[in-house]
């Protein structure tokens, strides 16, 4: 088998198990082993998908949910990143804010949902706030850890060679912290979807979570299953994107070298 073929084989290998599960599920449904009011057959879910796709409802809900997820991520992620950098680089800033942040970190952010509904109602701000709060901590903690973990010998080397503070940051500290920042990014992406779906399920008038809740009201179990599958796909998509970025920017890392 040629090298290219083998690498395609490798990348499809991960999809083998889901495909087998789907085939087994379809077979069991057709044979009447799984009643349709418990779990509809994949083909029924596929039909629901097609119907919602044609009506434009599905696309619209995915669009709204993605937009919410990304804007919350952008707000929470950038604040977390900025604070992680500040606290990693300045002892004063760390002493000033770290204790407070660690205390807040120990509150499960979903526990704030009742409060958030009281503050913002069920408008966009509520979802944005929750997602931002959820992604803030993994990004903050891992950025801080990454910067504190940069090899002090390399920093000393940079100083000896006369690097300015900016050069030291761009050439030594940031690249050194990057592997850890990516760990934070991947955690944050997972938390981003989780938070959004929970928030949309509890309080929303649009989006994927809302679609699933509506379907439950009308006992459209195929739509409920479809929503769950779409969550899985969206989560996988976000993770793949993060891994792709990781591979591009961490080429130097022995763990990402294929040759």
């Amino acid at each position, binding site marked *: 088998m040629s090298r290219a073929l083998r690498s395609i084989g490798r990348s499809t290998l991960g999809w083998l198990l889901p495909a087998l599960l789907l085939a087994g599920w379809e077979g069991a449904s057709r044979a009447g082993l799984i009643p349709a009011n418990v779990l509809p057959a994949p083909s029924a879910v596929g039909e629901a998908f097609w119907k919602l796709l044609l009506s434009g409802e599905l696309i619209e809900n995915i669009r709204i949910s993605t937009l919410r997820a990304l804007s919350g991520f952008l707000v929470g992620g950038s604040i977390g990143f900025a604070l992680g950098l500040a606290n990693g680089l300045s002892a004063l800033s760390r002493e000033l804010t770290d204790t407070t942040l660690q205390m807040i970190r120990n509150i499960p952010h979903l526990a704030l949902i009742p409060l958030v509904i009281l503050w913002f109602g069920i408008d966009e701000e509520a979802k944005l706030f929750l997602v931002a709060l959820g992604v803030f901590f993994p990004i903050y903690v891992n950025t801080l850890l990454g910067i504190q973990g940069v090899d002090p*010998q*390399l920093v*000393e*080397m*940079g100083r*000896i*060679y*006369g*690097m300015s503070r900016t*050069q030291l940051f761009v*050439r*030594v500290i940031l*690249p*050194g912290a*990057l592997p850890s920042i990516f760990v934070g990014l991947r955690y944050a992406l997972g938390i981003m979807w989780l938070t959004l779906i929970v928030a949309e399920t509890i309080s929303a008038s649009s989006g994927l979570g809302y679609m699933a809740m509506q379907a439950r009201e009308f006992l459209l179990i195929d739509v409920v299953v479809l929503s769950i599958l779409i969550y899985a796909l969206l989560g996988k998509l976000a993770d793949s994107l993060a891994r792709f970025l990781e591979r591009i920017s*961490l*080429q*130097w*890392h*022995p763990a990402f*070298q294929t040759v």
Partner: protein
Amino acid sequence: MTAATVTARKSYSTTAPAYTPAPQGKVSFSFRNVAKQFGGKAVLQGINLDVYEGQFVAVIGKSGCGKSTLLRLLAGLDKPTSGEIVTGVLEDDQKRTRIMFQEPRLLPWARVAANVGVGLTGIEKGETARKKSLEILAEVGLADRGGEWPSVLSGGQRQRVALARALVGHPSILALDEPLGALDALTRIEMQQLLERIWLAKKFTAVLVTHDVAEAVSLADRVVVIDSGRIALDLAIPVERPRRHASPELAFFERQILDQLYNR
């Protein structure tokens, strides 16, 4: 002059081993009554040392004798508690003292050529810097490795990249803090030869801290033995180059240094 150097002269009378400067030599750097304390504990005291331009000095001593501290003072990484260090080069030319450590300290996220380019920070930029980096890489025998990541190189190769990085800015003083300490015996000998060849070609002042007496006598013009924070022996090694490893002449000096180190 210490008692040890006097005895040395008696036993080897034809070529005086006690250090006498070359008459035409210009001073590269001087330690004047330098002392260094860490938390009240004296690490170095009463160090007086004049090193001449283009000289290869080896500093030797047991662990914890203060030899690495001496090098860090020279490189400006620490400040002396008292006394002063005068460098022959102008004050604003600080970039001309370079230090090489036992670890290569390469940036893992920069290609080899870019790592060498770090040595040109504030001196050269862009295409010129890249050209100079590749030239110096060729001189250390890594001509075709500029595009590699440091992680694929061997220990000896990484240390050669570190040497290229230290040399690319044409330092007048190169301080070497046991740079070959972590290498295997065969790679070590290769690196010693490379170091000598480059030093002969570039004529910088080299200060090599080592715990390997054979390495010191085979490379240096002059060996300074540090014991309990003081200079215990300052010995010239007037042996022609190229030197042969383990030759009787070198063995003579080696024994003298070992005698001093172990008070025999």
